[in-house]
């Protein structure tokens, strides 16, 4: 057996195109599923829930999430990979902490957004999707929302890349916009797979729109547009405040933070390597 080298060459770019294709396929699966569901939504649900739409929603969104994970996960650097379990735990624990304050939001994506800010959109998307998959171990109903969670992580990463986390007052704006998109994408899942929302508060809002004669999908989409942007604005703000509280040695170990100057503050003297 030959002695393996003590050094490595610069990581090859050969496999990159395959990964990129997988990423695009994943995103396309999610987008196509959404468009298909909206176009073919059953006009009359009086004969029972649309089992067909449920299967399409489940299949399409899960396929998209799995493709995204398959594209991103194997190439994530270990320093980012070890943060994903931390993010998942933070999603759960901080979500419960927030719950204990009695705020009317579920705030279950702080960890995902924090990773996206530190490690970029791809890591954020993978974290979001994985978060849903791991959490479904204890609550299977979150599994179908994997695509929405991936979208949140991805958009948070893009916002960080664009510098929206340099000032804390931009973070909630980015969160608000993310919430709109994520809410709209997740609405078909709630409508077709679960036939409603899982919370009483949100259920009441949907009921109000239904009372005005909206279709189920429209009512749930409108409800999502009311609660999700606010929820994500809070999540993004908390994640930003947490990121600011971290010492520079911690944040600057991430090439994404160094390269795109994600957080405010003067650039370090050391050049990128």
């Amino acid at each position, binding site marked *: 057996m030959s002695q393996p080298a003590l050094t490595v060459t610069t990581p090859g770019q050969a496999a990159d195109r395959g990964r990129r294709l997988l990423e695009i396929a994943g995103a396309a699966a999610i987008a196509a599923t959404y468009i298909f569901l909206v176009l073919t939504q059953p006009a009359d649900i009086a004969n029972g829930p649309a089992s067909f739409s449920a299967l399409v929603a489940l299949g399409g969104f899960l396929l998209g999430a799995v493709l995204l994970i398959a594209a991103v996960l194997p190439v994530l650097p270990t*320093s980012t990979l070890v943060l994903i379990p*931390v993010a998942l735990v933070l999603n759960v624990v901080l979500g419960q902490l927030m719950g204990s304050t009695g705020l009317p939001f579920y705030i279950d994506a702080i960890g995902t957004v924090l990773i996206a800010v530190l490690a970029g959109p791809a890591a954020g998307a993978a974290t979001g999707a994985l978060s849903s998959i791991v959490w479904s171990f*204890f609550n299977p109903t979150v599994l179908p929302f994997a695509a929405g969670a991936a979208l949140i992580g991805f958009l948070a990463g893009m916002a960080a890349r664009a510098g929206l986390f340099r000032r804390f007052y931009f973070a909630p704006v980015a969160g608000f916009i993310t919430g709109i998109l994520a809410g709209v994408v997740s609405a078909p899942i709630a409508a077709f797979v679960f036939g409603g929302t899982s919370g009483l508060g949100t259920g009441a809002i949907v009921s109000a729109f239904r009372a005005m004669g909206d279709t189920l999908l429209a009512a749930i989409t409108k409800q999502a547009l009311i609660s999700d942007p606010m929820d994500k604005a809070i999540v993004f703000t908390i994640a930003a405040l947490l990121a600011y509280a971290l010492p520079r040695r911690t944040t600057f170990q991430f090439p994404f933070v160094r390269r795109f100057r994600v957080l405010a503050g003067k650039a370090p003297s050391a050049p990128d390597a």
Partner: protein
Amino acid sequence: MTNDAVTARLHPLTALTAAACTAVITTAAASWPLSIAVALAAAVLAVRSGAARQVLAAAAVILVPLWLSLLVLHGLFFPEGHTVLAQWGPARVTAEGLGFALEVGTRTTACVLVLLLFSFTVSVPDLLAALAARNIPPQFGFVVASTLTLLPAVARRLDRIRQAQETRGMVVRGGLLARLGALRLQMVPLVLALMDDASSRAQALEARGFASPGPRSSYRDVADPPLQRRLRVAALVLTAAAVTARIVASWPAGGTA
């Protein structure tokens, strides 16, 4: 699957396939008697395998709010309904609405129970070893297992932080902003400590060859009898058939929208 001895000897992938296929077939079938039957079967199996308390407790946390929400939403407001049973102002109880809630509610109940039964009876190390043996990227197994290891540890740590901060005179009270502020102060040491640990863990994992490409071997061996392999194939074929049947049956209905 008639007794717990069989459940215990199930290969984790067989259990996973069985649970997932049952959930998909139940969804495709869209018939509430079948859903109820599946839910009951899952509950019986949970009792037999001794995981009933965990499964039912976890299911209750999910399903009780869902059922309430469904009953309020569809029981009282269902504009598509024709058969009005009762009416108070804008709220109308319709037979169709109640039927819809029953249909969706039982379907979700069945799926949740089946999947929870799987997660509370499977041996996680065996599942990970089985996944690794099938060329699932080791990173996936790492994320799943590490999260399950970290959860209880983090809960303990948070409690320690809370004690330490109370000791420094932090009293959580006051308005929303004050509470949020106090919360942030609890989160900071937690996040910092977790990220510090994570960065040394990354270094340790790389040092132990976790990031190296190439083949891996497995210390843990999970027996996979041929019968179970055939069972899995059969379950997958059956599920595919059920899904296809549903799509073929429903396509025109969907297309006319």
